[in-house]
């Protein structure tokens, strides 16, 4: 059976600046992985590059459920089953969340489950009062992240990459997001949580933790890695990879 996400020797640069220097990553269906790393290690770039943002020069390979996504546009990758939850979700003035989810359904005519997922995700996350408001406009940090989780529920992707979903949140909101992520775990889905801090991992049970430093994944393992990073920080890896 193919994996939810398969990444091989992924390189990305902007001009002369090499950001990703050969990333390998395998996320099987049903698993939740965490990628941890210091600022500037390339974590957010990895999620944008996988989504297909056009500002990078990219080489390497990535597939979702065995389908090569490298030649695909951003929207094709989304329809192939990739979802990126943004660290800084973009404001779309004048467009309500309901307008957006309606267009998501129209853009994906082969999927007839949108209506049901909109109702279910709205109920689960208490989104009713946000649905007629403009997307990410005048929302608090926590409300924006909740909106991203709602859209994830509506999209129902095969692989979800959550970029710093815990940044800017107070401890109760972090716990809530952790619970939401666990509730999204499914045999038909892989999840990647990108974070600097181990605190969100306390509210989840990641199957694997990857440490990213200097544009590469330098170590992978179980929950012991989070504990080790909590105690020692990233310095050891940064020195080793300098």
């Amino acid at each position, binding site marked *: 059976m193919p994996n939810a996400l398969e990444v091989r020797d992924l390189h990305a640069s902007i001009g002369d600046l090499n950001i990703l220097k050969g990333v390998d990553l395998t996320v099987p269906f049903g698993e939740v992985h965490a990628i941890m790393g210091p600022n500037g290690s390339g974590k957010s770039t990895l999620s944008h590059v996988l989504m297909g943002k056009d500002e990078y020069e990219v080489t390497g390979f990535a597939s979702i459920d065995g389908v090569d996504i490298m030649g695909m546009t951003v929207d094709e990758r*989304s329809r192939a089953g990739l979802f990126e939850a943004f660290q800084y*979700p973009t404001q779309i003035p*004048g467009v309500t969340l309901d307008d*957006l989810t309606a*267009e998501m359904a129209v*853009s994906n005519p082969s999927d007839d489950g949108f209506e049901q997922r909109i109702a279910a995700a709205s109920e689960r996350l208490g989104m009713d009062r946000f649905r007629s408001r403009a997307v990410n406009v005048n929302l608090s940090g926590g409300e924006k992240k909740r909106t991203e989780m709602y859209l994830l529920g509506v*999209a129902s992707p095969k692989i979800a990459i959550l970029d710093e979903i815990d940044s800017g949140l107070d401890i109760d909101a972090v716990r809530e997001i952790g619970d939401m992520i666990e509730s999204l775990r499914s045999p038909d889905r892989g999840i990647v949580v990108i974070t600097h801090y181990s605190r969100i991992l306390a509210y989840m049970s990641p199957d694997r933790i990857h440490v990213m430093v200097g544009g590469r994944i330098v170590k992978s393992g179980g929950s012991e890695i989070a504990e080790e990073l909590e105690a020692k920080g990233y310095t050891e890896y940064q020195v080793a990879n300098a």
Partner: protein
Amino acid sequence: MTETPTLGSTDAAWMASRRSAAVDRLADLAMPSEREEIWRYLDLDFDPDIPSAPNAPGGAGGRDTVLDGWHGDVVSIIDGFVVTEGVPTIAEADDEVSLVGDDDLFSTAFTAYAPGAALLTGDQLTSQVLVDVQSTSSATTFPGVHIEVPGGSDASVIVRFRSTTDVGATVVPTVTANVGDNARLTLTMIQDWNYQTRSLGRGVISLHRDASVLFNEVGLGAKLGRLHLDINFVGSGSNAKVYGAYFGEDNQTLDYRYFMNHIGVHTRSDMFLKGAVEDNALSVFTGMIRIEETGQKTEAFQTNRNLILSSGAAAQSVPNLEILANDVMCGHGSTVGPLDKDQRYYLMSRGLTPESADRLQVRGFFEEVITQIPDEAIAAWVRDRINGKYVAAQQEGRV
């Protein structure tokens, strides 16, 4: 409908003498020049053919979506003639009404050749009024509307301009309003002439003590659609909210010259216009906030945002401030640029095709001003028209 009298035959004495003076002066007036700041950016190389003003209205156009969705009163003006029974004109009124001076070729021609602006006051304003202004031929015409809102009362007027044929014409519409002490006017103007017609429009709104106006303008049609608007904050405490939405395509020029003249104390103006241009269209917005020495405690703001959707399209956006008082608060903002890349990326990451992402972004861009249009049916019609133009431009590969 009554038999319509010929031009000038029912003029009151003051109007007859004003008209004949204007006819005399016209002989000496030339076309304005694009070297004058207020006409800058425009192509004025055309013959307005003023003597072609007709003596009688043409045949009325049919009903349409706007009229079908309308539940208030309707006043019809065809080729400059008020054809709705029981609606007087300012030309036959006992007292002189003149908010627009005869300061250039077009305003002077209006005085000389307009049969008379529809005079809306008292009884005509008890319910919402839609003024349906039609141009039916290539004749140059001078339709006018004057709204006199008595002190302490509310009025709501929509003026919709349309062509009933594909023939190009020159039209000089003039809409004026006098809003009395503590009175409120909601005025919406929809410019929907055909793409061969040049419209040299003029608007003046005078606000008296504690009067307010909510003004919306929607620019859809015309080869040249111009509106030179003055709002005069004469009375203390008067205020205006001014919104605009315009969408230009083809070789259209949509031209807005807005002047907020703050004279009384404690007055406030907020201008907020949003426009998009594609194909070879040009839009112009010059907004002037002028605060007289007497206009202390004025608060005045203007914002103009423009989307450039095709490489052949252009937008000029020029905010101006002229402040003679020393205790005021003013602000202005102006942007001209393409659709937002981050919004497109975000929407595409949710599975939207680039076309639907851009469509949604354009719809959202205009929503902020369309929602200010007070009548829901009219707002829905405007929304469909603007978004329809963008969808057509996508389908025809212009954006």
